[in-house]
């Protein structure tokens, strides 16, 4: 079950303080990277919710993100909706789609689940790629950022936009942790540990899985809206299965099933990507080698590693034993 240990709370506080203060001192390039990290962070929170806690390793989260991004762009440009209703609409659409995928795939487990989600993701990808309505290979441009000039906030300024994305990361984190601590979250972890037992206890397993997937899909759709607003351009590449694969890589590097770790993973991944790609065009190979090393070391990512060290050093068990003796 998901709990907020002191280490996790401290890390979250440090991350929040660090990212907000960086948002005030960073230049244009730093702010763009910050927004990129925030968007990836929302996507990996969504993925960790289902993969880390429910054991549902999904290769369609890139597609859910892409659906959100396209739905937002179409709603805001072609249909002419204001940005906020368009965001709500596209988040709802991603969520409904995720519920359907979750419901259909709920029966399969392990590699079959991965393949089934891959199939649905690729279906969305080829649909968008081929449909003339969505601009095909060229993509669509012109997604607007929310207009809050009425209350003196201008989102075309990258500083305001970066703060806005960070606040939405915080919101996503709160939604995910609230979900995990609710009855649904406990059922989800229970299903991951022993599906048959939960079924015997009378839980409608497919509905729990699909609902969790829908919440995760809503967050992925939100990340898609932000991605569309950030670059103000969407292309079918957003839906590609390699985006889902990379999100999975980030979750693993950060620490699967910790919810906090993937945030660290997102920072590490984006910073590494920019630092290494400045030195060599072959940054993917370096990321690949790091990934192989992390998986083979069997550590639960960066945060899992820190947590294990922390627990090993923590004096708590000794104190308990001493009390028991007394």
């Amino acid at each position, binding site marked *: 079950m998901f709990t907020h240990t002191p280490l996790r709370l401290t890390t979250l506080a440090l991350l929040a303080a660090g990212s907000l203060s960086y948002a005030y001192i960073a230049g244009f390039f730093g702010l763009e990277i910050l927004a990129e990290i925030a968007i990836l962070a929302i996507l990996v929170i969504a993925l960790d919710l289902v*993969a880390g806690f429910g054991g549902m*390793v999904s290769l369609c989260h890139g597609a859910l993100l892409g659906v959100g991004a396209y739905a937002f762009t179409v709603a805001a440009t072609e249909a002419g909706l204001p940005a906020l209703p368009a965001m709500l609409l596209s988040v709802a659409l991603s969520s409904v789609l995720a519920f359907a995928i979750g419901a*259909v*795939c709920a*029966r*399969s487990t*392990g*590699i*079959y689940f*991965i*393949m*089934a989600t*891959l*199939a*649905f993701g*690729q*279906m969305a990808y*080829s*649909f968008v*790629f*081929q449909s003339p309505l969505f601009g095909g290979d060229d993509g669509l441009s012109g997604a607007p950022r929310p207009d809050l000039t009425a209350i003196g906030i201008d989102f075309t300024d990258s500083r305001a936009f970066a703060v806005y994305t960070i606040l939405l990361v915080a919101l996503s984190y709160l939604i995910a942790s609230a979900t995990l601590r609710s009855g649904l979250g406990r059922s989800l972890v229970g299903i991951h540990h022993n599906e048959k037992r939960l079924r015997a206890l009378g839980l409608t397993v497919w509905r729990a899985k699909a609902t969790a997937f829908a919440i995760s899909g809503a967050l992925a759709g939100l990340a898609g809206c932000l991605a569309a607003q950030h670059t103000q351009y969407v292309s079918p590449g957003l839906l590609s*299965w*390699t985006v889902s*694969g990379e999100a*999975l*890589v980030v979750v*693993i590097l950060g620490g699967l099933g910790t919810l906090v770790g993937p945030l660290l993973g997102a920072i590490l991944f984006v910073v590494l990507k920019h630092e290494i790609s400045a030195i060599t*065009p*072959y940054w*993917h*190979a370096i*990321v*690949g*080698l*790091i*990934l*192989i090393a992390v*998986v*083979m070391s*069997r550590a639960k990512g960066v945060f899992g590693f820190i947590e294990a060290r922390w627990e090993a050093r923590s004096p708590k068990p000794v104190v308990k034993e001493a009390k028991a003796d007394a």
Partner: protein
Amino acid sequence: MTTDLGFWVLQTLNALQLSMLLFLLSVGLTVIFGLMHFVNLAHGSLYAFGAYVAATLAETLGYWGGFVLAPLAVAALGAVLYFTLIRSQRRAGPMAQVLVTFGLIFVAVDATRLIWGDLPIGIAVPALLDGQIALLGVEYPVYRLFIIALGLAVLAVLTLILTRTQIGAMIRAGVDNDQMAACLGINVERMFFLVFVVGCALAGLAGAVAAPVLSVTPDMGLQILIPTLIVIVIGGLGSLKGAVAGALIFGFVQTFGAVLLPTLSSVLIYALLAAVLVTRPEGLLPAKG
């Protein structure tokens, strides 16, 4: 157009050619999965490596030199991978395997870019198989017929080995129940290694055969990976029959979909995959009954 017999013959041959290429790739992957329960996403990268080796050797040794040596080179690479990564990840569960081999794809794509550059490499069809031949009223490239024939030959050899020889019986026993097979005195570890290397060699062969038809690019392994996975998932992981059925279904749906329903063609195959997974999660012809 659709009433013309030539059209159907031509498209059927195209579909068969695609199916046979996918069969060469998927048979190795599916038997590796069935026997070792190992998901190797880097299988497509082995195919790309085979194509590059064939293209490089074709410059000095001619096409046939590459055709023979590329599978051997890929098998050697497969052996190295087996001892460094695959063996230790065998019992680690599907997610660790997906991730390790996903990392391998990253490394492989950049390694090929580093060695061979970003530009596509083309190699010529061998003189022996150059030209076209008239068949049922259509002119068809001989080389593509050669791909079909090669696929059928590999299928025949593998069927014979799996059903008529002792090693085939041992492999089938291993797919069915590897612990029981080990109890009966079969060296399952050695058999895993053998199957893995042969699977890699077949991927290399597919690469060498595909090189003159498709251009050889760093992302060719990534492009072929999804079709290969679809083939083995539709067919049923671990079964030779499944790989054949899956490859034929994919080849025909893809080819005829593209000419008859061009707007729906690529969605069609994924919809089919989803339908198979929902109704028969183990695939159409799973290895275990």
